[in-house]
């Protein structure tokens, strides 16, 4: 329980900083909107086509936007040796991972709360009837994305060229969860019954569970000095 309390302290600290500065949130929302715009330009004004590929476009947008905030996961700690400070506190280093993970999930879900309706408008997909299913898919996909992302962000934080290394390591690892999220989203948007999307929910659930265990387990090694 002490681990959870420490993790919560980190979540609270980061979200408080974010709430006061809004530096990540604003940049992410604008970036996500631009990505959606570029997709619309690239694919032309064919609304039928856009509607069909909306699920894929949405998740590419989320992945690109998410990587922005992931690479800044430990930025608050970077100045004046904050990460060394966190590391030298007594207790399990996993609290740092859990805290940062939850912070990333919350932030990315907030961005998605803007991004998904915006995508619905731009791609003329009617989202309201499927809002509950979409929320489930978005949450499961975001958890999977953030699990591996927060982990690899810690691994690359001290690296030269980490802006290149993080996506290079992260995107191949994310293939299962992105496949699951895209296919589930597409099925939901097509109005397919939930049972059809279920196989993809299971893929995401399996990915989330397996990587939660692996990442929590190995994280102290990744953070060692």
């Amino acid at each position: 329980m002490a681990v959870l309390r420490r993790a919560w302290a980190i979540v609270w600290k980061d979200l408080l900083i974010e709430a006061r500065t809004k530096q990540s949130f604003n940049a992410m929302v604008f970036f996500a909107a631009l990505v959606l715009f570029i997709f619309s330009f690239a694919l032309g004004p064919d609304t039928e086509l856009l509607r069909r590929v909306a699920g894929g476009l949405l998740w590419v947008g989320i992945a690109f936007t998410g990587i922005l905030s992931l690479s800044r996961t430990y930025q608050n700690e970077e100045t004046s040796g904050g990460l060394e400070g966190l590391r030298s506190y007594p207790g399990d280093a996993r609290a740092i991972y859990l805290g940062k993970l939850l912070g990333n999930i919350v932030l990315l879900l907030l961005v998605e709360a803007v991004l998904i309706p915006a995508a619905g408008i731009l791609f003329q997909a009617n989202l309201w009837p499927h809002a509950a299913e979409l929320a489930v898919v978005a949450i499961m996909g975001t958890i999977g994305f953030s699990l591996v992302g927060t982990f690899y962000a810690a691994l690359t934080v001290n690296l030269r060229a980490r802006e290149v290394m993080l996506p290079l390591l992260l995107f191949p690892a994310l293939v299962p969860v992105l496949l699951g999220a895209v296919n589930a989203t597409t099925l939901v948007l097509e109005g397919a019954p939930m049972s059809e999307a279920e196989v993809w929910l299971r893929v995401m659930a399996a990915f989330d569970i397996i990587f939660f265990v692996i990442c929590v387990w190995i994280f102290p090694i990744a953070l060692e000095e």
Partner: protein
Amino acid sequence: MASRTGVERFLGGAAGLTMLAGSIVGLFVVPADAAQGNVQRLMYVHVPAAWLAFLAFFVVFVMSALYLVQRDARWDRVAASSAEIGVVFTALTLLLGMMWGKPTWGVWWTWDPRLTTTAILLAIYVGYLALRSFADDADKRARWSSIVGVIGFANVPIVYMSVTWWRTLHQPPSSPRSVSPDILWTLMLNLAAFTLVYAYLMVRRVRLERLEGELEKRMAYNA
């Protein structure tokens, strides 16, 4: 105990000879496939290259896990060497597969689960090697890349399953063909040849890696 260069020379000779034998048998001795003709002979290099790639990445996984437990730089050197060889042979597998796919399937590339997984595999280990090249400190490089070596390999079955589901929802997988004994033993010969090539390259590469590590240490000491 045989000397180091003795082992290397023996492995090199054995690898060279079996490669030569495998190529001769594969190209001239075994009859051409009835349906595909000479193109099918690509199998004798494509399949062994794929086998070698997976073997190499399995070695990366085992050595990375060993490193994380024991923190012995030796395991990291073996993992790094194996990853390099694995990347080369994965790329070779894809290239040979494309050369085979174009005349038989009519396309260079298709989103078949095995093709897709192999391409993702290549991306994972290119990331592994890039991570190594960007890390300056030897201990950190070993630790970070070992973590990627373990996670990357653990992810392969999940990737394969998700890609299989993704594809089978759209099209049925191709049915396996029965293989004649001629083809089988030629394939086995080439598998043995490629495995010996792997062993030879590994011995050389690990030695080079160790020398590089020593040099790095000495330069750090003198600086």
